């Protein structure tokens, strides 16, 4: 079986999944009439289109198709979004400075080389710069530190 690394096959699977989800969730949206189109017309048409595209790609992927190329970093794929989410959480609870420090250090951990001192310096400098630019110069209303 050469299924798992066929680019087209997985593209198709993904499109079918998204299209089917769109159709399923949108099944109750009123379709309306040609004269007065309801909220469901666009979602249903687009969902169906995606499913059809998906079927096409699955078929193409089964026949032949390119493999997924290039290296990828599972580390970056997990850490970067996580660092971002953490920033969102910390903005609510600890304020701008801790959130940004964590984001910069966290993101840096996704890279191929991590030099602690360098990263800490970068984090402090960047944070200082962002405080100056965004909080003082542009006047964004975020507390630098908040205890709550």
């Amino acid at each position, binding site marked *: 079986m050469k299924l798992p690394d066929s680019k087209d096959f997985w593209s198709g699977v993904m499109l079918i999944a998204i299209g089917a989800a769109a159709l399923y969730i949108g099944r109750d949206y009123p379709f309306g009439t040609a004269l007065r189109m309801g909220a469901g017309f*666009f979602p249903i048409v687009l969902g169906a289109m995606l499913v059809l595209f998906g079927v096409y790609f699955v078929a193409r992927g089964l026949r032949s198709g390119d493999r997924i190329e*290039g290296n990828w970093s599972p580390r970056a794929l997990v850490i970067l979004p996580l660092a*971002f989410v953490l920033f969102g959480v910390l903005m609510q609870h600890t304020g701008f400075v801790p959130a940004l420090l964590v984001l910069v250090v966290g993101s840096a951990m996704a890279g191929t*080389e991590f030099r602690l001192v360098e990263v800490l310096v970068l984090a402090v400098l960047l944070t200082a710069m962002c405080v100056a630019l965004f909080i003082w110069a542009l006047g964004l209303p975020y507390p630098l530190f908040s205890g709550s």
Partner: protein
Amino acid sequence: MELFQQLIFGFGVALSWQNLLYCLIGVSVGTLIGVLPGIGPLGTIAILLPITFNVAPVGALIMLAGIYYGAQYGGSTTAILVNLPGETSSVVTCIDGYQMARQGRAGPALAIAAIGSFFAGTVGTLLIALFGPPLAEIALQFAAPEYFSLMLMSLVAAAVLAQGDMMKSIAMVALGLLLGIVGRDVNTGIERYSFGITELSDGIGFIVVAVGMFAMGEIISNLGDPEERRVFTAKVTHLFPTWDDMKQSFGPILRGTAIGSFFGVLPGTGPAIASFSSYMVEKKLARDPSRFGRGAIEGVAGPESANNADAQCKFIPMLTLGLPASGVMALMLGALTIQGIQPGPEVMTLRPDLFWGLVASMWIGNLMLVVLNLPLIGLWVKLLEVPYRLLFPAIMAFSAIGIYSVNNSSFEIYLTALFGVLGFVWGKLGFPPAPLLLGFVLGPMMEENLRRAMLMARGDPSVFVTRPISLGFIIVTIGILVVMVAPAVKRRRAEITD
């Protein structure tokens, strides 16, 4: 001369010190990111968009536009000096530009690239000024059916002409349209795909999608595939091209400008296609084609003019019809909308300062780029030595602050993270990201116009083919599709876009 008066009016707007400053910031940032590989104009504009909310619309647009065409300049600098295309548009420039640099002619190569770009930028600016008003005049007569057909045409054209797999581009457009309609339906008040989440009632933020896919998605994929940087830096000795260089470049610059302008108004074609076509034309026309690839100055002059003309002319459909012809233009439209300006042909009459000010600023910006780039080349090259491991956390920080500042919402931060992952996965599967953005921006407008058209025609879908202008767009749409499926064209397209 009405045109003349309007241009003077535009210069009046663009020459105010604030707007000059915004223009300077824009082109500097543009050059910077053009030089740096791994971050392109799309990501940068998306990240900086929120900051422009506090700026007046004219200034915001001037700055964002500056980033866009500034990046084309910066990209060519690194292409010539270190054989590293900062942007896709300058891939072709590497071929002969780098060879010239190795032969000690880096100066003339850079100069001719700047001169060609400046000439093309000037022509592009004039073209916008010339064709903008009449086009908008025509577009003012469009009703819902025409708009729907026009959007359909530009989406299909954008998908077909984009680089990569055509079917995947079209699928991305459909996906973008679907994402675009998330939230409360304006006509019926029904919540669609919002899962009871309050933040989703207003739809997915357009900056969320753009930053997620073009900033975070890019970084994820760059970290997986670290490219090696050759740090052979050619010494730039004498800058001025010889008289022979000028004579040889004259024709290529003219032809490159024409080619770039043509591709510029077509939706979907990136500047890479324009510069590539120009290179092929010059190679065909050359008396001795074997010189190409060994430092032929025509191979720099033509493509560099073409990509700049393309970048300028992309503004024509955006400013006159409110239609994005590329991902960057979709972002510009988003910027206008956020500023409370409804994009479309009315912009020109309602906000002449916006249109003419932007047009004039582009010329000024091009001039700034020449002045900025040639003497400061050493500085830009130095920036290349900034390692990516320091760069990407900074990009992440700016992205996060940018997103958060739009609605002070942590939810949008989470959503961006999701789009970062999706952007990466889609990229790996060979889906080009730009068509999704076009669909996303046009989604709500298309639905609205479709509804209005059907209401207008009392539910008779033939309205799209009985109204002549709309019929024209439909015919072109079908034509594009038919031509593209033809085997010969398909093969040729594959050659060009790979």
